[in-house]
């Protein structure tokens, strides 16, 4: 039964009050613990297709008569087009159409960042299209770019009003403190660099349009394209069967989709518009740089009295100012907190959501400073975190479920290893162990729907127009349906990835796919099961196996439908965890090795332990990259992006990957849906940088203050620590404080 409610909806840490039509979630949760299928490790149901190359990604798509588009993008951080001439491009062989500034909204002549789309051409081959783009004549007026985020804040060049949040009396909290520490932390711009670049193939069919796209949100693309092209949403079909990574950068339709749509319309042919790797490193979004000026005040036993911070998000030309202050606001039970967050508008490519946006950056700053505090006070870092554990949210709401203390308990044996690890230090290679806590969202929410079809052979198909962005959520849905129906996993097929072939499904962002879709799939399977039980009752064999009952159907089918119910009212749904990193630092060359990371996370019930450990490993590997080697560089004067290839932009290689030990608490969140499951896409990347930085402090006494921890930064921090030590010896202070 549907009902209308007023509720808070959260995506990627941003909340809005919305009206939602939701259906009741009448099913009881399964008891805690692994079941016959749910909670058991399952290999991916589409693993073989992927491994054999049979999986057709958007990048693989070759439609009959398909043309290829190439895009002219601004090479300048800030420039105006005085004159543009598409004629030389149109005259070249193979070229079918070209569009310039103003012909569609996504093509502009006032360029406020490098990589903004200016013109596009489509041709028979990609090489022809690229040659044609190079032939477009452009007269640029290059303008002075604004690149420094602090300068943007000074000038008031902000995306929106500074966000001031807080509780208690911050100044009073500082006054009550026995010790006050401050620190400035910086994080660099890092790139999503998905294996499959951003792309779409668009063709007009009848009075509608078909969009094949590498996307995290089939239904969002449908609405965005419909609005952009002036079509009823049902005239837009969106297809994404397989997806080569998104990490938050593929939530919207973007310029390439509308360019393909326009050129397809003009030529009457399907058009593919795929970003090159170079474009991917310019115009496809990024995790923006941050500057965090943080203060912590505490009693001498470690009890926090005040937390404060000025956060500058170097957003780029557009986007949004993510919750870099979120961890400071939410992680600890500190009575006095004050944060101000600025979204600096600069002439750089816009940010996009990137795997726990804001929280990765903010956790690095906060958890590094807390570790400095522990070191200063001589308090064990794990005990400091327990001491300031938050029993409720800052506004006194209960958590729907929180197993962070259990995470800390399970971290103990990993934390204990620090004595043995340190003991392996040499004169030049220092070893240490560090930890950091994780807080993030991941509860998902309504609406989301699924259908389950059971045939007379006892096999079932889950039908929903959801995307599996490579995380294995399709497999999790099959497990949930099989568990509820009581049939083997390989008797379940999952049909997803096509808005014309299934009901609405939530965005795959904010770690929300499993917690949003899973309960809907279970409800649909339960609906089908109830119908089968009803037939069994009528037949007078209420205990007959499912296969025996459905065998009566012949060509008939049982059709079940299910919807995601509401989130628990008045509660906050969050995920928690802790990571313990072991590192080695070569103090002469600044080289850092991460040897081992133990990750303990609480995401409620685990559907597929194998998929979950893969997610943890993926998050940590990406986190190691952001911590040690990845950084988008630009020229400090012109703003030109310098790292546009995968040899200049340094993703971690397999040799950089530490031993990863993953543990999940696996306790259902008893207030959340019929599953008690939260998402795990983002949590594992949140604490990794801080855990590594804290391990470096443990090993060397050096306070790392910026990401990535390049050799230059590592050597700087070591020198600073050495100077501090010498100063201390001069004044005769006891060592080690």
């Amino acid at each position: 039964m549907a009902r209308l409610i007023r509720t808070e909806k959260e995506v990627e840490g941003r909340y809005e009050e919305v009206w939602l039509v939701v259906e009741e979630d009448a099913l009881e949760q399964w008891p805690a613990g692994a079941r016959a299928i749910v909670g058991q490790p399952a290999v991916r149901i589409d693993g073989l297709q992927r491994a054999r190359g049979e999986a057709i990604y958007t990048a693989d798509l070759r439609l009959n008569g398909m043309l290829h588009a190439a895009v002219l993008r601004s090479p300048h951080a800030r420039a105006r087009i005085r004159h543009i001439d598409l004629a030389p491009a149109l005259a070249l062989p193979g070229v079918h159409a070209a569009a310039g500034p103003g012909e569609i909204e996504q093509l502009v002549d006032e360029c406020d960042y490098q990589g903004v789309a200016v013109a596009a051409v489509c041709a028979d081959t990609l090489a022809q299209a690229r040659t044609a783009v190079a032939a477009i004549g452009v007269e640029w007026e290059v303008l002075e770019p604004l690149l420094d985020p602090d300068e943007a804040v000074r000038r008031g060049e902000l995306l929106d009003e500074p966000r001031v949040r807080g509780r208690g009396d911050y100044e009073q909290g500082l006054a009550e403190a026995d010790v006050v520490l401050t620190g400035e932390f910086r994080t660099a711009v890092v790139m999503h660099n998905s294996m499959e670049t951003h792309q779409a193939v668009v063709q007009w069919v009848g009075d509608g349009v078909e969009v094949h796209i590498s996307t995290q949100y089939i239904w969002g693309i449908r609405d965005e394209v419909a609005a952009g092209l002036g079509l009823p949403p049902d005239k837009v079909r969106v297809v994404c069967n397989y997806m080569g990574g998104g990490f938050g950068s593929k939530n919207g339709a973007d310029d390439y989709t509308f360019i393909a749509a326009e050129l397809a319309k003009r030529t009457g042919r399907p058009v593919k518009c795929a970003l090159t790797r170079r474009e991917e490193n310019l115009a496809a979004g990024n995790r923006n740089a941050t500057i965090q000026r943080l203060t912590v005040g505490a009693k001498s036993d470690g009890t926090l009295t005040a937390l404060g911070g000025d956060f500058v998000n170097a957003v780029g030309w557009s986007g949004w100012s993510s919750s870099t202050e979120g961890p400071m606001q939410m992680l600890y039970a500190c009575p006095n907190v004050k944060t101000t967050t600025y979204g600096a508008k600069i002439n750089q490519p816009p940010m996009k959501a990137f795997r726990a946006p804001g929280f990765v950056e903010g956790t690095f700053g906060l958890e590094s400073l807390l570790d400095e505090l522990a070191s200063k006070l001589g308090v064990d870092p794990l005990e400091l975190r327990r001491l300031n554990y938050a029993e409720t949210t800052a506004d006194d709401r209960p958590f729907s479920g929180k197993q962070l203390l259990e995470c800390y308990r399970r971290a103990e044996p990993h934390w204990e290893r620090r004595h043995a690890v340190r003991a392996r230090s040499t004169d030049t290679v220092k070893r240490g162990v560090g930890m950091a806590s994780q807080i993030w969202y991941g509860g998902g929410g309504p609406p989301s729907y699924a259908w389950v079809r059971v045939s007379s052979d006892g096999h079932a198909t889950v039908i929903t127009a959801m995307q599996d962005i490579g995380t294995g959520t399709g497999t999790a849905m099959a497990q949930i349906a099989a568990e509820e129906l009581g049939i083997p996993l390989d008797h379940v097929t999952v049909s997803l990835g096509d808005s014309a072939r299934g009901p609405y499904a939530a965005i795959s962002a904010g770690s929300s796919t499993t917690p949003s879709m899973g309960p809907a799939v279970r409800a649909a399977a339960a609906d089908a099961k109830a119908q089968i039980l009803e037939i069994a009752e009528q037949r007078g064999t209420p205990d007959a196996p499912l296969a025996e009952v459905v065998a009566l159907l012949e060509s008939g089918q049982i059709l079940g439908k299910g919807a995601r119910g509401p989130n628990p009212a008045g509660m906050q749904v969050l995920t928690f965890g802790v990571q313990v990193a072991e590192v080695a630092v070569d103090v002469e060359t600044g080289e850092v090795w991460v040897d081992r990371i133990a990750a303990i996370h609480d995401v409620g019930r685990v559907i597929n332990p194998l998929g979950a450990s893969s997610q943890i490993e993926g998050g940590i590997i990406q986190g190691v990259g952001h911590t040690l080697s990845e950084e988008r560089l630009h020229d400090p004067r012109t703003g030109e992006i310098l790292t546009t290839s995968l040899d200049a932009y340094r993703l971690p290689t397999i040799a950089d990957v530490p031993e990863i030990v993953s543990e999940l608490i696996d306790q259902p969140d008893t207030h959340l849906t019929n599953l008690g499951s939260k998402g795990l896409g983002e949590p594992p990347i949140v604490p990794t940088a801080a855990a590594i930085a804290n391990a470096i402090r443990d090993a060397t006494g050096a306070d790392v203050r910026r990401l990535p921890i390049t050799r230059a930064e590592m050597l700087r921090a070591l020198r600073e620590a050495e100077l501090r030590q010498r100063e201390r010896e001069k004044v005769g202070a006891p060592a080690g404080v």
Partner: protein
Amino acid sequence: MELRRASSAADIATDSLLLAGGTEVVPLLRAGLIDGDSLVDIRGIVPQGIAGDRIGAGAKLAELECDPQIPEVLREACRLAASPQLRNMGSLAGNLLQSTRCWYWRLGQNCRLRGGDDCFAREGEHREHAIFANDFCASAHPSDVAAALLALGARLHTDRRQLSLAELYRVPTDDDRRTTTLEPGELLLEVEVPPAVRSVYLKAMDRKRWAFPLVGVAAVRTPAATRIALAGVAPVPWLLAEDGLDGATPLPGNAYKTEIAAALVRRARAALDA
């Protein structure tokens, strides 16, 4: 563009683009950084393989890294270069003749190395750039292998002459922007590697594998001398002089490279003494 297969050195024109492993020339072509009418496949005319102290210019890095006849410093320089896939394709001569990784040059900017008036790196982002001979052009030579051969005192045989490896390279100047002394159309054929008593190659990079050297240190002891050569610190492979690193002229953003170089040179010397 036409792809031709050379059957003799005479098939090579002065402006021909040469293809051996293709790991450098193909990306440069794709990026539009070099251009020409024809690409000449020289795999049929350039010697390959290893015979005593002679190495064919077309030998793959992957062969060198596992051949026990090759001095340790060269094997290690090969092993720490690029990735296994690239080493399976990349040739010895191609590695010696590769262009700088300076991002300004790789983005096609009209810098001094390309004949322009500015070194954008000196004023801009230069964390990976040269700490020696960087007053005109701050590009860093990326070849690990060249540093190893420089320390070994290797000699080169071309289709026209013999020269020392040191003579192959030149620091670019205002009136001549080239970084090698090869004449147009001249073909490297063989590399002659003198024996070493002891040798070692140490490399600092931004990740554990598949990165160009921030600093590479090749150290070789022969009965006559100890030589140390550095990769990634100057526009050419750099032979360390008597004054060691005192002559370094780091830029504001890359002084850390001098620090790393000092540590690695110290360790390399210690390894030779061990």
